């Protein structure tokens, strides 16, 4: 996004609104740091700019900068990666899709979240070691199209793009859970440029328990009580 310098009066009302803190005022004019901007569009949509000086320049939709908008602006549908938004339906429709079945476990590692943002290349801290172990990344996730899925290396043209967040998403057989959780836990120690929020998609067992919880506790990974629960109302129902 950019600020029309002819319109801007440098009032500074816009400063608190940018999620990336990319707006600054200099010589009574507001500017957006183009490296820091993730093209989320909140400045255009939300700031009550008295001069309506914020606008989206055409280059926002040109490759590779368009990647920023794909991963940053939740209000628009985008085609540059072939899929929409930052993630997939994951647990939301798991009662119908059976994306993660009993005996499997899904990982959703959202880089840049919360609040920090990330360079696309920063996901390599985990995608490379995962690829070395033969992990198959979720094909419907838009991040996957930016990777060499065999090596986990991010494509050259998008490496330096800063995005609001991106989700490394995959599912594995439960037998490999401890091994792969260990890889992620170890990778986190080398993740020095950003943060990631770690979500685990799990199927309830017949007795209502979740098999992953005691394994995580054994590994010393605290399991907070927050969860997103699919209540099982979808049809046709997948009981696998």
């Amino acid at each position, binding site marked *: 996004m950019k600020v029309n310098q002819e319109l801007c009066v440098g009032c500074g009302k816009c*400063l*608190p*609104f940018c*999620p*990336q*803190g990319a707006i600054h005022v200099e010589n009574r004019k507001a500017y957006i740091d183009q490296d820091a901007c993730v093209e*989320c569009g*909140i400045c255009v949509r*939300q700031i009550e700019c008295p001069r309506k000086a914020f606008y989206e320049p055409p280059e926002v939709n040109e490759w590779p900068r368009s990647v920023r908008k794909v991963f940053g602006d*939740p*209000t628009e549908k985008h085609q540059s990666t072939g899929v929409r938004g930052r993630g*997939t*339906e*994951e*647990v*939301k*429709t*798991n*009662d*119908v*899709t059976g994306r*993660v079945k009993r005996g499997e476990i899904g990982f959703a590692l*959202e880089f840049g*979240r*919360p*609040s*920090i943002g990330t360079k696309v290349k920063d996901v390599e801290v985990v995608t490379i070691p995962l690829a070395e172990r033969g992990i198959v990344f979720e094909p419907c996730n838009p991040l996957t199209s930016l990777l060499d899925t065999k090596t986990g290396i991010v494509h050259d043209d998008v490496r330096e793009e800063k995005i*609001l*967040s991106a989700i490394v998403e995959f599912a594995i057989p439960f037998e490999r859970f401890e091994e792969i959780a260990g890889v992620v*836990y170890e990778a*986190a120690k080398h*993740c020095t*440029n*950003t*943060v*990631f*929020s*770690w*979500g*685990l998609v*799990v*199927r*309830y067992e017949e007795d*209502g328990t979740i098999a992953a919880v005691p394994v*995580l506790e054994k590994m010393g990974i*605290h*399991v*907070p*009580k*927050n*969860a*997103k*629960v*699919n*209540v*099982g*109302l*979808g*049809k*046709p129902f997948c009981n696998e």
Partner: protein
Amino acid sequence: MSHTLHRFGPEETFQNDFPFISRPAMKINSDGAAPKMRRVMEIALDHEPVNWGSLTTKQNLTMGFDREELLNKTEDNSPAMGCFDDRDKVVAVLKQLKEEDLGMSVVITGLRDKVEEMCHEAGLTPHSADLALGIFGATELLPEDETLCFTTMCGHAMLSAGLVRQIRKAVREGRMTPEEGAKILAKPCYCGIFNQTRAAMLLEQEKEANQKNEE
């Protein structure tokens, strides 16, 4: 994406926080789903969520929206998204959805044991869950915990730490009520999953703590 997950804060602040999402599964039960999704929204809205939103109309309940306009714009792949601040209302919604058997998937976010209990009360068996394991990596880059409690209520990260700090300060200094502050903070979250009741409670708690410190 998992935008209702990963809310940050002390466990006790989630007692009345229940983001709600319903949607069809693309290419499986999405064809012709618009009337069903419209009905899901009607049922949820009839039970007075604390917030509700739409990425299509780019509006949320806090900003004010025309209910009929929102319902009329429902398409086959439109998600229903909002937040409740009362577990009994959620149970009532789930019971009615079960009774009408619309076949659209529903997820409720919250403290897991509490949500499981609500499901059972509605006669439902939870199918699967997305567990939030927390934040990893360079956590020293994060805003302070008090601010994260608010920013993480918009999972798409549209609410900035800067705006949260500005509102927290205004409430602490008595220039704004917690309710007024919560309403401003809810605006950037078009999905309507930001919980103004929880935000007002957090702002009130901070204001009271600040007053005690000054005494």
